[in-house]
């Protein structure tokens, strides 16, 4: 990965996470001021902190890159990048296994929930997504 690409990607992450954080925060403000009760409104405030923290971490990374450009090398080194990709692929495999076990466990423990509860559908959808998303992304990257 080139230096420019990494900086561009980090900037994109910052803007996207800030936008998500702002949307969640604005939702909380609107719901609080209008007195609308949509689940627990505080959840929106709490959720807005997650993307905000991600944006903060990314901006710190960007600052570090600008201050110490030599640090960039460890981020763009093909060996390090390959190692990171391999670690991520193994993490995905482990998560797929966990999702499969969750789905299997849920189906056997609560057979009455099959095709009925939202939890069962979510578990099945996430499992299928984790299985087919790699093919989807490979196709997108190819084109």
């Amino acid at each position, binding site marked *: 990965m080139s230096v420019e690409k990494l900086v561009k990607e980090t900037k994109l992450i910052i803007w996207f996470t800030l936008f998500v954080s702002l949307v969640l925060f604005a939702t909380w403000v609107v719901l609080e001021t209008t007195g609308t009760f949509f689940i627990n409104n505080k959840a929106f405030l709490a959720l807005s902190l997650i993307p905000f923290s991600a944006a903060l971490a990314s901006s710190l990374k960007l600052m570090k890159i600008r201050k110490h450009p030599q640090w960039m090398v460890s981020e*763009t*080194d*093909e060996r390090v990048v390959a190692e990171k990709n391999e670690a991520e692929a193994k993490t995905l495999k482990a998560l797929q296994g966990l999702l499969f076990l969750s789905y299997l466990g849920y189906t056997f423990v609560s057979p009455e929930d099959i095709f009925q509860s939202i939890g069962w559908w979510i578990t099945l959808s996430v499992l299928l997504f984790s299985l087919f998303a790699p093919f989807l992304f490979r196709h997108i990257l190819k084109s």
Partner: protein
Amino acid sequence: MKNKKIKIARVEADVSQEKLAAMVGVTRQTINLIESGNYNPSLKLCTAICKVLNKTLDDLFWEE
């Protein structure tokens, strides 16, 4: 298998591992791993190393 050709070429060019790493845009550890034969570099990195050390791919990476 160790790649002694790179090490010899690097020493001949009077370039340290750290300097070579900075010139080709990788970490010193990567150069060390290539020289010790524990990492298989991409063609892109091989050509970058060759250019810096003023050698051909055959000179540094061809095994008889």
